[in-house]
């Protein structure tokens, strides 16, 4: 029973890697975007979903990865060699932010992360080495789409695998305990701050890697694009709409979002307002199904398996 999704995932991964052989460039671009979304959503979910620490400041890590790559490439380093440094810097920054911020709980932590994200964005636009508001361009000749595509696909597969491993491990169980009741977890000897910091660093490093690949693919970055609040927003919305705290949820959310994005951006009137739908989705999820699409699927499956069970409304009324 558990083997089936694993085999399915492996087949899907193999198909994705082989895609440049038979898909055209436009479709590959869409798959690239999907892989990018899967990475961001699944990485955020490690801290936000498993550990229940909702951060709205993840664009900072994406930006750190992207800027490390562009600045080092301009200094003559091969772009792909800059990836580990970007990831390390993002992890370091996540610890620097996390040490004070993790003293805050729930919504207060969330607000603090909005503050950090905005402070980073505003500072990045005001200093000169980021290229200010005009941004920076990658050196010529550093672009190879197929290579970038394969790297992004590999990172997506690794991120989902890492999320699945974390969920099964003692680390994942500690995060779940922190999410459910942090006081009880600490009373039982779980070092909550340490686990939160580790989850933060792991997800920050992954997001930074995706940010580096983003910079290489688009060849141009600016504080307004990589530190954008809307980016932090989408990173949070995908796992929540898909199903927070599950492995499949963020992937599902990423699929829904990137499909919608492609469809919605094609309509000129909705170019700026595509987030409308996401906001409405978020409201619906919060009111009716906090476990998102995954929760919805589970409910449907349970309904199919036991059709004799009365619907929850009838049960409540009786």
């Amino acid at each position, binding site marked *: 029973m558990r083997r089936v999704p694993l085999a399915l995932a492996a087949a899907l991964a193999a198909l994705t890697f082989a895609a440049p052989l038979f898909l055209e460039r436009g479709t590959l671009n869409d798959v690239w975007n999907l892989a990018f979304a899967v990475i961001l959503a699944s990485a955020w979910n490690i801290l936000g979903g498993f550990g229940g620490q*909702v951060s709205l400041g993840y664009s900072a890590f994406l930006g750190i990865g992207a800027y490390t790559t562009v600045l080092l490439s301009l200094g003559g380093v091969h772009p792909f060699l800059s990836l580990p440094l970007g990831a390390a810097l993002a992890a370091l920054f996540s610890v620097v932010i996390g040490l004070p911020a993790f003293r805050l709980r729930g*919504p207060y932590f969330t607000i603090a992360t909005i503050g950090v994200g905005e402070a980073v964005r505003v500072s990045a636009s005001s200093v000169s080495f980021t290229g200010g508001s005009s941004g920076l361009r990658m050196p010529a000749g550093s672009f190879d789409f197929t290579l970038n595509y394969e790297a992004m696909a590999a990172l997506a597969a690794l991120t989902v695998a890492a999320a699945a491993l974390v969920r099964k491990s003692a680390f994942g169980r500690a995060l779940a305990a922190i999410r459910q009741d942090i006081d009880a977890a600490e009373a039982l000897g779980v070092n909550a701050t340490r686990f939160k910091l580790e989850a933060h660093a792991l997800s920050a490093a992954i997001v930074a890697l995706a940010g580096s690949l983003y910079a290489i693919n688009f060849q141009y970055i600016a504080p307004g694009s990589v530190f954008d609040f809307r980016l932090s927003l989408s990173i949070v919305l995908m796992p929540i709409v898909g199903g927070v705290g599950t492995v499949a949820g963020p992937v599902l959310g990423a699929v829904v979002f990137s499909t919608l994005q492609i469809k919605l951006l094609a309509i000129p009137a909705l170019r700026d307002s595509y987030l409308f739908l996401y906001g409405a989705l978020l409201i619906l999820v919060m009111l009716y199904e906090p476990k998102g699409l995954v929760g919805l699927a589970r409910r449907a499956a349970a309904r199919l398996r036991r059709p004799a069970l009365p619907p929850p409304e009838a049960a409540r009324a009786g």
Partner: protein
Amino acid sequence: MQDIAGVLVNSVISAALYATMAYGLAVIYGVMRIINLAHAGLLMLGAYVTLSLFTRFSLDPFVSLLVVGPLFFALGVALYRLVVRRLPQSGATPSMESLLLLFGVWLVLQNVAYLVWTGDTQSILTPYTLKSVPVLGVRVGVPSLFVFAGSVLSLAFLNLVLRATYLGRAIRAVTQNRDAALLAGVDADRISAIAFGLGTGFAGVAGGMLSSLYAFTPDFGRSFLLKAFCIIVLGGMESVTGVAGGALVLAFLENALGAWTALPTSFQDAVSFTLLFVALVVFPQGLPGLFGRLRTAHR
């Protein structure tokens, strides 16, 4: 280099506006323990409604506050009855669900604005927009003075409602001790609806006043939301006088940094965001909590 009088006058003027913004958040937080992220969207919407009243009916932005206030009060009550009430009640600390739900409301408001008013930068230009008059030897823009007057009047109105009416006393009672207020026969659902209406009304009025000072887009409001947070964190989330103090501290820091350091103006916002972060972490009980701790330490 600007003299101390200039910094002080400007600080007091911005502080009044900041306090109006922050009170809207504080009333809702006090009664319902909900952090209203939609506040940013409501500030933005207040600015756009004021703009529409100005262009359609050539209503002066400050006169239109008399329309915007009640309109947003009704909007807030509707928002509470249709959406917010369906959430489970927050406990002593706000729930994540309420934060994310109102975040969704913010997104919807923002993108409705993109659809209705497009993403173009808008501003309101009245005959007095560029005029200025001397106050205590400092030249102050006429719109800033009107904003100051509008803020003081709205704060006085709120204070009157909270002190002198049954509703206000009920709001304060629920804020101080929800269970005791319920036992005393306060209808918490009705009080919550009114508090949400008041908070939303204040957001609309503050947004309307912001529209005569700044240019705005549908993305407008986020930095002011963070400033409002910063203020209620500094002032303590429940204390009413604290909010005014927090607003003064933030306004003074911003103006002082702008006047006496070489920091670029775009950096000023980063200062308040950093201050928000530091304030949240260092004194979770706000300045009153800090003073309380100092007092106990000296004893």
